[in-house]
């Protein structure tokens, strides 16, 4: 691990100012991902600005019935928050499906959003990886990629990347149309969840649209008003990253889909909001056939690799199964 200076700040603004002056510095939240990456030599900050207790660790009511989640709220507390459990069960379930009890106690909401891919070519500095070392190649493309992306990858050129985003929580937030509140050197701004994470495109090094020195201070959840659910499929029963996961919410009126939200985890470089499937479902009968057709429409864009084509039927089945469960009794 590279040597670094450890700094605490009095408030978020001074933390932002501190980091703005340190091009190779980083914010430290719970550390569950950053410290890991520093040990691996993947992250090499020369300054750590500790923000774990700078931002709010509270979940607060918003006037519209939504919730504002402080960036420092530990994942465990957020999952257990009664309002989240009652109004946004998809978020509670996503959090509980992630990592382990110990990690959820330490990891923060803001940090969870910004965690980096667990692609083993990325986390091993002796391997080619365009995300870690642009232009070095993508080891996973022709290598071991059973658990890599099937949607939205960059499959050629110097930004080739087939990594997935590892967060469960972020998948739920994508489905919930969350808004990320960010404090930067130029002041505050709001980033819709759909615009926070990015596909590798022509620059695989950037996971998000945040700029250096920008600090996530809170996450706003607009009211949902629909039953919701998170379902994660993984290689073992617990404590593993998703093969494919789904965050879903749906409202049915008179047997017809009135509103629906769908997002996938484990299939792309970012939480994959399935807008094509949503569009295909709105106004359609809430039937297994509609659900399957919508899933197929979304997944038609999939470009699976040699060894991960199973994710396509798995994602399809998850859509159908989860929507059937959510609409049981309303169909």
């Amino acid at each position, binding site marked *: 691990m590279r040597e670094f200076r450890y700094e605490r700040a009095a408030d978020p603004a001074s933390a932002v100012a501190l980091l703005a002056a340190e091009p190779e510095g980083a914010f430290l939240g719970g550390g569950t991902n950053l410290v890991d990456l520093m040990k691996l*030599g993947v992250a090499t900050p020369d300054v750590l600005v500790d923000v774990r207790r700078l931002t709010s660790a509270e979940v607060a009511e918003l006037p519209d019935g939504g919730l504002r989640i402080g960036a420092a709220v530990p994942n465990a507390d957020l999952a257990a928050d009664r309002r989240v459990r009652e109004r946004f069960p998809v978020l509670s379930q996503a959090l509980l499906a992630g990592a382990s009890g110990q990690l959820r106690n330490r990891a923060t909401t803001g940090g969870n959003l910004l965690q980096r891919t*667990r692609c083993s070519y990325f986390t*091993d500095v002796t391997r080619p990886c365009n995300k870690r070392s642009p232009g070095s190649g993508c080891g996973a493309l022709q290598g071991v990629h059973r658990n890599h992306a099937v949607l939205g990858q960059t499959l050629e050129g110097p930004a080739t990347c087939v990594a997935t985003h590892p967060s469960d929580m972020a998948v739920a937030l994508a489905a919930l149309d969350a808004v990320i509140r960010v404090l930067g050197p130029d002041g505050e701004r709001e980033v819709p969840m759909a615009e926070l994470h990015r596909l590798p495109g022509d620059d695989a090094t950037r996971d998000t649209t945040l700029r250096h020195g920008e600090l996530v201070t809170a996450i706003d959840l607009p009211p949902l008003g629909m039953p919701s659910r998170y379902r994660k499929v993984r290689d073992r029963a617990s404590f593993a990253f998703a093969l494919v996961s789904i965050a879903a919410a749906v409202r049915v009126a008179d047997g017809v889909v009135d509103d629906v939200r769908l997002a996938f985890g484990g299939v792309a470089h970012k939480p994959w909001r399935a807008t094509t499937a949503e569009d295909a479902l709105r106004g359609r009968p809430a039937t297994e056939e509609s659900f399957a057709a919508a899933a197929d429409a979304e997944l038609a864009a999939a470009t699976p690799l040699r060894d991960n*084509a*199973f994710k396509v039927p798995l994602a399809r*089945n998850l859509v159908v*199964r989860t929507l059937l469960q959510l609409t049981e009794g309303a169909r």
Partner: protein
Amino acid sequence: MTTVDRLVGAGVERIDGPAKVRGTAPYAYEQDPGEPICSVAVVQSTVNRGRITRLDPTAAEAMPGVLAVLTPANAPRLGEGLASDLPVLQSLDVHYQGQIVAAVVAESSEIAKAAVGAVAVEYAAHEPDVVLSTDRPDLYAPPQLMAGYETDSVIGDVEGALAAAAVTVDATYETPTQHNNPIEMHTSMARWDGDRLTLWDANQGPHNIVNDLMTAFGLERGQVRVISPYVGGAFGSKAFTHPNQILAAMAAKVVGRTVVFELTRQQMFCLVGHRTPTIQRVRLGADAEGRLTAISHEVVEHTSRISEFAEQTATPTRVLYAAPHRRTTHRLARLDVPPPTIMRAPGETPGMFALESAMDELAHSLGIDPVELRVRNEPERDPERDVPWSSRNLVACLRTGAERFGWAGRDLRPGVREDGRWLVGTGVAAATYPARRRKAECRITGHGDGRWTVEIDGSDIGTGAWTALTQISADALGVGLGAVELRIGDSDLPFAGGAGGSTGLASWGSAIVLTAREVRRQLDERYGGQLPADGIVVKGEVPGPSPHAEQYSMHAFGAHFVEVRVDRDTGEVRLPRASSVYAAGTIVNARTARSQFLGGFSMGVSMALHEGTIADERLGHYVNHDLAEYHVATNADIGDIDIHWLDEDDPYVNELGIKGIGEIGITGAAAAVANAYWHATGLRVRDLPITPDKYFRALGQG
């Protein structure tokens, strides 16, 4: 004199238990060497085969806190005769990816690890050759297999019998590379006092390690002491010396300080061995009633360029079922991989997956209950050695297990049971493991006040040996547990082979019993049966294998019954319940034995559903080299497990009738799971592990 049954068999609580639950039992790193400890970290090759062309340690050497950077250019020369990858830093040649090419010794672990990144290394390398296949032209027959087994066995006319059989199975099964991954990483702490070396070390048998250290550093016995009273799991990887012990001693010598080399989890995937992958073709021929006429089991597996490790994969097939025509073969490929080693039940574990899966396929072809098929093929005598069994209760295990599990009335058809979205199935497989005894020595000291000290270099790698050996000692001496002080895990103690091959209690326990007999004899002859006031010291030993080992075939047996549920939408697999029944001779400690059976079986479930190390065929490295990516079963993966054993009195295996139980639990377990998976889904997955992707592959959807 026979042993007293007072304590042997009782479920005595672990005597090392209180310290272990609090965390105060000192494992290797936790011993006190009496001075501050320096840290070793290593630079590893990033190529599989080649030669170092440049190695520049100057930047690392210049870092504050770095005491030394050892390279092939400056490392002390080691003695001749070290095998495999033990000649650490003795050459510029690279034989596998991950090989140690330089080592940093520093004041702290942070400094050592940071300095590793500052060592520049370049190589001239060959393309890696890491893919095992059955059509490689370089497959060869090793002279013999591990543990001295013959490479091949041929009886009768297998091809003719298969051609004439009413029903046949011809299937190929694959098991992946697996890693032992004890939770305590291999750790060696070394201190030199003049020309005497002390190594606090995580291993399965200090005497095993001492010999290589003597060779490496030109020492006499008595100049090396290896201390290992508590070991945080091993499963085979800590059986033999690996580069870590040699390097720790070398580094301590160079810097003149106590050093510790604690491997990282990632390094555990290349520096301390693994289980070879296997490709196994099994052919079975049977008559219409299910009596086997032919068994053929052909194994292809790998070894490294610098070692020959020939896993005895088909050897259980030589003992499990009767058939007049039979053949087993083993062929190896030398690949650019780290040296393989033993991993829990080497041979039996992968071999039984293939054989017991094939038996399930045969039962289906015949329309016979798979328990009944096995019963019909029960051999009267060892089918290849043609000697009687010292004891064999496989049929009783199958019958008892079937009853405990509720097997009766099972529908033979696959893929027809549903519970909501779960597909439900059940499966069975047999278990077997050889019962062996090895040479071991023991010293018993009777103190004038009625206390006894029993000394033997046995190991407790989690088996319960601390407790079981104390029980055996107390019984053998005719005293209570509290009167016995046991000392194990130290090479200064009387010789014993390591904990491995399920030989520990059989060998060490026998040595204790025989030595205690000599104690009694001396007390009776010289002291009128009373312990003299100034005490008594008696040495004894068990010379090696049982004197009956030639005339009898000696094995433990068992049977696993499992229920498996497969999510029809996702291919997720769950194991809600299982029954495992064993006939393994004398059970010394009912409490710790249950844990060993449970742990072995559960590791077999882990093998079936989760475990597999994946090599990148182009880059040549093991990709999933940590515990986030190399999946082992978590708590949530193991359901209700019913463990049971039968009373079995075997007068031939050893003084105590012990067959050894460290390994039998894992044998056959993966087959039972795979068979239940097939029964649930109608899909036969013949390559482990059975992960969700394989469900879709089997359905033709990916």
